[in-house]
C-alpha cells in the first residue's frame, strides 16, 4: 500500500513538473535594462506590473545601472552573448549598434502599423530619424528631448526681473552672459555663492556635446567636414566656442572651478538653488529640490540669431536586441509602455515623441511643454560617427584646455588633429 502511495505521488509530481515545464515554454520573461533614473524605473516597474496583469504569460525583469556604468555593462553583456531583450540606448550609439547587428529592426506590426511610413506617422517629425539607419528604424523614443533654458524665478526677482515675463528672458548668448553677471553673488571674501549661469563640466563627452551642439549649429560649425576630415578648428567653430564657452571664463562668471560635479545630477547647482540659469531638458525638474521645483520657469534656448533658431534633439531610446528570443513580446510591451505618453510625462518628465504629446491636459499642465514642443521643430541630432566617443573626448579635452587659458584655436587644432588620427585608424 505504502509502495503504491509512493508510486502515485511520484507520478503526480512528474505530471505536475511536466505541466509546469509546458507552461514555462510559452511564458516569456523579458529582461529590460535601463540607465538609472529613479522616476523612470519606478514608472516602468509600474507599467510592467500592469502589463503582466493583462498578459500573465509575460513578465518583465528590470535592471538598472547609472549612465556610464550602464553602457559598459551593456556592452559586456552583449559581448558575452547574453544581451537583455530590451535595452535603453542613447541615439548616438545607434549607428554603431545597428551596424554590428545588435539591434532588431522595429516591427511596425507590433505597433499596430502596416508599414515603416505608418510607424513614422505616429511620431513627431524627426523623432525616429536619429534611430533610423539606411531606412530601417531600430528603436522607439522613450525620451525625445530638446533643450531649453531653465530660470530661477526667485533669483530673477532679486535683480528686479519677473522671470514669468518672456520679455525678460535672455534671447541671445550675449543676453545670457550679461544677465549672468547681474545674477552672480559673492560673499565678502569674493567667493561665489551663486552662479548666474554655467556649462556642465568634468562630465562625460556626451554631456558636453549636448550643450555645445546647438551652438555649433547656430554658428554654422561642422565637427566633421564634407571631406570626412575634422573641421572643428574652422573659423566658425573657433568663433562659436570663443563667444560662448570661452566668454564665461573670461567674464569670470563660470567655469569648471565654480561647478559642482555630480554625474548622477549634472545640474546640481541649479537643482539646489546655487545657480540662476541652466540648460536642460524637460526631464530635469524631477531632480530639482522642492524649493527650486516651485520656482523654475522654462525659457527658449538662447540663440545666436533669434530668427534662425537651432537646438539639439536627443533620444534615450528603447530597442529590442537581435539576440532576444522574445522579440515579438518585447516590441508589444514597448508599444504598451511608450503609448502612455501622458503617464511618462507626468511621472518622469520624458516626452515620448508621439504626435500630439503637447496637446494633452497633462502636457498643458507641464511647465514649459510649449517651449519644448517648439524646440523639437528646430533641433538636430549630434554628428554621427562609429568613433563618436573618441571624437567627443577630443573636443571635451579642447574645451577643458581653453577653460584654463589655452587659446581656443590652439586647443581646437589639437582636437582636430586627434579626430583625424582617430578616423584614420
Amino acid at each position: 500500500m505504502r509502495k503504491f502511495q509512493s508510486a502515485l505521488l511520484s507520478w503526480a509530481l512528474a505530471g505536475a513538473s511536466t505541466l509546469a515545464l509546458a507552461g514555462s515554454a510559452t511564458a516569456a520573461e523579458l529582461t529590460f535594462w535601463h540607465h538609472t533614473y529613479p522616476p523612470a524605473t519606478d514608472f516602468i516597474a509600474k507599467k510592467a506590473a500592469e502589463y503582466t496583469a493583462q498578459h500573465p504569460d509575460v513578465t518583465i525583469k528590470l535592471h538598472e545601472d547609472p549612465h556610464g556604468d550602464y553602457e559598459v555593462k551593456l556592452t559586456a553583456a552583449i559581448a558575452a552573448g547574453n544581451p537583455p531583450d530590451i535595452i535603453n540606448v542613447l541615439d548616438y550609439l545607434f549607428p554603431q549598434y545597428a551596424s554590428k547587428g545588435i539591434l532588431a529592426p522595429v516591427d511596425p506590426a507590433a505597433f499596430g502599423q502596416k508599414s515603416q511610413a505608418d510607424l513614422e506617422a505616429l511620431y513627431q517629425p524627426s523623432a525616429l530619424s536619429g534611430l533610423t539607419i539606411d531606412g530601417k528604424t531600430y528603436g522607439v523614443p522613450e525620451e525625445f528631448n530638446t533643450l531649453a533654458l531653465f530660470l530661477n524665478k526667485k533669483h530673477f526677482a532679486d535683480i528686479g526681473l519677473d522671470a514669468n515675463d518672456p520679455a525678460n528672458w535672455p534671447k541671445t548668448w550675449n543676453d545670457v552672459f550679461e544677465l549672468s553677471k547681474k545674477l552672480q553673488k559673492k560673499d565678502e571674501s569674493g567667493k561665489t555663492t551663486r552662479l548666474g549661469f554655467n556649462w556642465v563640466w568634468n562630465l562625460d563627452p556626451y554631456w558636453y556635446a549636448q550643450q555645445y551642439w546647438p551652438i555649433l549649429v547656430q554658428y554654422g560649425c561642422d565637427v566633421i567636414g564634407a571631406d570626412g576630415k575634422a573641421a572643428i578648428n574652422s573659423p566658425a567653430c573657433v568663433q562659436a566656442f570663443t563667444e560662448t564657452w570661452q566668454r564665461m571664463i573670461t567674464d569670470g562668471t563660470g567655469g569648471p572651478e565654480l561647478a559642482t560635479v555630480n554625474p548622477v545630477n549634472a545640474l546640481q547647482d541649479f537643482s539646489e538653488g546655487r545657480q540662476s540659469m541652466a540648460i536642460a531638458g524637460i526631464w530635469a525638474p524631477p531632480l530639482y529640490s522642492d524649493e527650486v521645483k516651485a520656482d523654475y520657469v522654462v525659457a527658449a534656448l538662447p540663440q545666436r540669431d533669434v530668427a534662425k533658431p537651432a537646438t539639439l534633439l536627443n533620444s534615450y531610446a528603447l530597442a529590442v536586441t537581435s539576440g532576444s528570443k522574445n522579440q515579438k513580446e518585447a516590441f508589444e510591451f514597448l508599444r504598451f509602455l511608450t503609448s502612455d505618453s501622458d503617464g511618462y510625462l507626468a511621472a518622469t518628465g520624458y516626452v515620448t515623441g508621439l504626435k500630439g504629446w503637447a496637446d494633452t491636459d497633462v502636457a498643458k499642465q507641464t511647465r514649459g511643454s510649449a517651449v519644448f514642443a517648439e524646440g523639437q521643430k528646430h533641433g538636430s541630432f549630434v554628428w554621427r560617427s562609429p568613433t563618436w566617443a573618441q571624437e567627443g573626448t577630443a573636443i571635451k579635452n579642447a574645451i577643458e584646455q581653453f577653460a584654463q587659458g589655452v587659446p581656443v584655436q590652439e586647443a581646437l587644432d589639437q582636437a582636430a588633429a586627434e579626430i583625424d588620427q582617430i578616423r584614420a585608424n
Partner: protein
Amino acid sequence: MTRTASGPSRYGRWGFLFCLPALLFIAIFQLYPVLFSYFISLHEYDLLSPPRYVGFKYYLGLASDKAFLRSLGITITYVVYTVVPVLGIAFWLGWSLTKLGRSRGVWRTLIFLPSVMPLVSVALTWKLLLNVQGPVNDGLGFLGMAPVSWLTSSAMAPWALILVSWWHATSYYTIIFLAGFLAIPRDHYEAAALDGARGWSVLRHITLPSMKPTIALVVVLSTVNGLKTFAFQQIMTDGGPAGSTQILTLLIYKTSFSFLQMGKASTYSVVLFTGILVISLLQIWLLRDRHRHA
C-alpha cells in the same frame, strides 16, 4: 621501504588535490585573462563583432600613439613622485614609531587607518576637500593664501593626486617598515653602542643593511602599486582636466570600455605588464642582499 617510498608520492597527490581549487581559480581568473590579453592585442576587437587578426599593428603604432605616450609620461611622473617621497616618509615614520613606548599602538593604528578605508570613499572625500571652494582652500584663505585649482587645472591636478597618494600609501608602508625595524635584533645596536657608534653611523652600518630586504619589498610594492593605480584618478578627475591625469590604467579602461578598442587596450596592458615585470625584477636585483648570497 615500499611504504616510505610511496609516502611522499601519496602526500604529493593529496597535496595537489588540496591545491587544485586554488590552482583552478588562478588559471581561470588570472592566467587565462593574461594570456587572452596577449591574444587580443594581436587582434582588432570591439566586443560586438568577432576578433580580426591584425598582427603587431598596435605594437608598431605605439611609438606614434600620442594618447599612449602622454599617458606613459603621466604614469612615470606619478610613480617617481609617489614612490620616492613615500619611501622616505614611511621610513621616517616607521623609525619614529620604534622610539615610542606605550603610545606606539595608538599611533600605529592611526597611521594605518587610511589603508583600511574604502578607496572609493577616500577618493570622494578628497575630491570634496580639494574643491576650489572646499575646506582645503578655506584653510589656505585663512592663512592669507590664494585658492588653488587643485583638480580643475592641468598643472595642479597631477600634483593633487600625488599628494593624496602620499597620504594613502605612506600609511601602509610605514607599518611594513615598522615591522622591519622591530625585527632587527637589539644586540646589534647594543654591540654598536659598546663600540661607540652613534646616530648616522648606526643608521648606515646597522639599520640600513638590516632593513635592505624590507626596503626592497617596499620599493617593489610601491612601484607596482603606483603603476597599477586607478581609483584616485578615475574618481577624482576621470583623467582630466584635458587628459592631464590620464594614467595608463585609466587609458586602458577608456580605450576598452568607452572606445571599444579591445586590441589596442590589450596592447597597452601587455606593455604595462611587461614594464612592471622588468622594473620589479630590476629593483629586486639591485636591492638584493649581496652578503647573504655570497
